[in-house]
């Protein structure tokens, strides 16, 4: 009846979205004995946004009071409505901000979900981290709060950095990683090379 994927990550704290490199604008604290902050079951992960303008301590204090989540590992085709339906289960949503490709202005696989109340956001971190949306295991982590500009991907490609360096083929996130695609295009004649099919992304949703 049910499907049991062999590699099912459950630990939000240990699940790193781009494990191959450290060039992102955020950092995963590698100190595994670092002090764990936050309420039971909804602790802060070891990820910190390096773009945050302020001290690490200030960022942590913000994260501990935040009502905003960062949601990662979405498919490019997942809509705001779907995100709303999944996250509504934890409480009243104030707003959702879909992450967009900086250049193409199309969804690039992450979003911010802001709740009205902190307890609802905690419920979401507790029980929706690792849940599935469009057959993908999503990651929910605390975010210090949305600021204009943060909705855009920070990668070279315009999308998220993890999609620059990704080695695998991921249909939900535009096929191969950007750099591989680029290398493939440069080294091979595009006509001879059978590129994997990539669906056209949905229409732009910037406003």
């Amino acid at each position, binding site marked *: 009846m*049910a499907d049991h994927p062999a590699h099912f990550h459950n*630990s939000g704290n240990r699940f790193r979205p781009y494990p191959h490199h450290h060039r992102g604008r955020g950092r995963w604290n590698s100190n595994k004995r670092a002090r764990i902050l936050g309420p039971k*079951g909804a602790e802060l992960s070891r990820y910190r946004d390096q773009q945050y303008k302020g001290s690490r301590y200030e960022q942590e204090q913000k994260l501990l009071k935040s009502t905003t989540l960062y949601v990662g590992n979405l498919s490019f085709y997942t809509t705001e*409505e*779907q995100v709303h339906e999944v996250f509504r*289960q934890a409480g*009243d949503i104030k*707003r959702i901000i879909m992450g967009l490709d900086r250049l193409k202005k199309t969804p690039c696989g992450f979003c911010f979900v802001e709740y009205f109340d902190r307890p609802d956001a905690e419920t979401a971190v507790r*029980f929706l981290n690792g849940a599935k949306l469009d057959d993908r295991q999503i990651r929910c982590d605390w975010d210090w709060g949305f600021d204009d500009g943060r909705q855009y991907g920070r990668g070279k490609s315009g999308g998220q950095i993890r999609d620059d360096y990704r080695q695998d083929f991921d249909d939900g996130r535009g096929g191969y990683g950007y750099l591989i695609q680029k290398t493939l295009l440069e080294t091979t004649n595009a006509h001879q090379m059978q590129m994997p099919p990539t669906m056209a992304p949905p229409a732009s949703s910037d*406003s």
Partner: protein
Amino acid sequence: MEVEQVRINRKRKFDEDADLNTRLEELIKRIGEKSQESLETNLERLVDILDQEITTKKEFILNSLVKNAIEQPEKMTIYSTLVGLLNVKMFSTGGEFLVLIMEKLGTLIDDAEWRSVQLLIRFLADLINCNVVLGASLLGLFDTFIATAAQPGVKPSMRDFLLYSVMQCLPWIGLHFNDSKDEVEFERLLDILETEIEKREKHYMPSIRVWSSDNPLPQIEYMDSLWLQIKNMRNNNWEDNWIIRPYVAFESKLESSLQHPLPQFELPADLEHTQFPLPYVVFRIFDTPDVPNRAEVPKLPRFNSIDRFLVEDAIMNVINSKNLTKKECAESLLRISGRSSMPLNYMLVEVLFGGLLELPVPRYSELFYGSILVQLCQLMADHLPQVLAQAVAYVYERLDTMNTVLVDRFGSWFAYFLSNFKYHWTWSEWEECVNLNRTDQNHPKPKFLKEVFLKLLWLTFYEKLKDVIPDEFVTLLPLKPGYNHKFAEVTPENNLQAKCAKALIESIKNKEGLDMMLGSLDPLPDGAIDGRELDPVYPEAKLEVVVQTILRVGCKSISHISVALNRFRDLIMAVMPNQDAKVCCLKITFSFFKTNHQLMCIMIEKYLNFQLIEPSCIVSWIFSPYMLPHFDRLYLWQMLDTTIKFCIKRCDRIKVELEKSKVKLNEKKEQEAGAADPDIAEKRKQLVQAAEEAVDHYVKLLEDAERSQKEVFLIVVQRFIMILTDHIVRSEQESRYTQTLWFRCTRDRLRQTLVQYRREVKRYMVTLQTLLFTPEIEPKILECFTQFKGYIA
């Protein structure tokens, strides 16, 4: 070299001292966990260690024992054995321990920690098995409890709590009293208990029953259920197959000590005003024959066997302590299932379904139960998924007698569950729904599937849904979501409204001001489209153009809608002067999203949060004749829920702000009093004034919000009564059967509104009783209110 050694030794001694508490705590906490030694050996060792330390660390050790017995109830009997063994070594310690327990009991009652109170009483009772407590003395305590419960005028919830506290100890102590010198007294106590339990009135049962039918398994109220199980246990010489009794191995040793009488204990006098636990029904879905009769599979005890209670109690204890961490919780549940004497997979599914389907609302969030079930399916891939499927099939078979609120809740969970497992299901087993739908669209089974498919659509997208659901079910699938723009296909030349809509869009594109935008609507009348008389009057024709146009501009996504509503707020408000106009706006919105109910639900949230439409208007619209065809659809009730919760949350938030402003005012007043310099004093006086104004502001806001909330509740209840009365009267006139499925569902919803929002409804009891639930209304409706009063008593 030598000096260095001394230094190290000294440091080590210091560390050891500081660590002693932690180490003792750790030893106590971890006793009974998996170990290479036997439990008996470990217990003896721990007793020796504690005995050594007890002179200096007595208070710490005793406190730690009580704490762990409550926090790890699955190991309670281990802790009572430990106390028993300590009592043998040092008689005075046992006495001091009892004093401590009684003190702790008092604090827990004061804090209304009911679950812990009951666990502590159970621990206390179990101490008679270890020869620490005098049996007669324990019976004396229980006698006080029962006597207090039996007093006339004691409120039912308190009476039930006291009786249950005694009852839930019996499985642990029945055997002890069975052939002791206190047997006669014990039997007498059981008899009084039985009388008290049986004479209780339970009018409220229909409000909290999952199924209205007891076929195939009786759904019994929790006290009656436990009493039934205890009676069976009594007939069975107080035997069970679950409780681990480590004290049996130490029987001869424990017998050598003397027992203590219990310290005097009195229940606090003012318990009448405390909130006690609410009643519930024990959820039953499996019985012995449901488990395959194979040698390697343990037998499932009957529903009325005490073993069912004991295992469920153990599962509940894990859930109660681990409900914040799904992974830890699932792993702990798995650990219980390590004991092979019971088919734990069946019991886990039953308890978790019971939790999810608890009325009025689940104890923990629906997401908790949902994600635990997903986790368990992964952790117990060989044992759990098939049992879960069996349970789902049973619920499906019993949909016709299931409380309609729970049909909805179950459907939402099922959609969530499927979306976590790639939508795999043996759909072929439900193919009958297609035919059932053809003959009766309102049949509970196809209706359920339709709701599940709709929820699935919301979680995924239309093409995917068509892909994963077999073609046979196509008639049950929702329509492809879209929007229905009224002026899209009308030629503007022939239609004044379409012409104005076109002009309005132009005006929007040119980023013109409010006057210009309103100006583009000038050709339209300031009343109805067809010249109908509106009372009170509002510009219906203009309103339709504005709402349709704004929705058309923003319908791309939720964010777009929000932006559009924010940007054109003034425009909407300009054509929405009164309540009727707002109800009309909802009608227009609903017709725009005719095939996209998800966005309609979100629109309700947005209208409320942007303060465009008041909750009372939304409620009036939901109960309007216009929405009657949608009266049995989940989305309608989701909108009602959103609206009511909005009112409640708004009041709660203002209350928080009001409290904050009051604190601030006090601070400012204190500062003012402390100022000597006249200049500073003057400044501070102004600050006090500002703070006072802030308080006044919130007081007024709260008054408004509370008035609005009351209005909403009164409208909801009134409309329910009207609609149900109307149904009864018409059925009687046409001599049709009154209690149709529609009637039962609607009545379920009325009951649910009362019990779910009991905290709010309680405040309006007088108004409800004098204005709405009057003796003249239909008894079938009035009984909902009577049941509610019984429920909160």
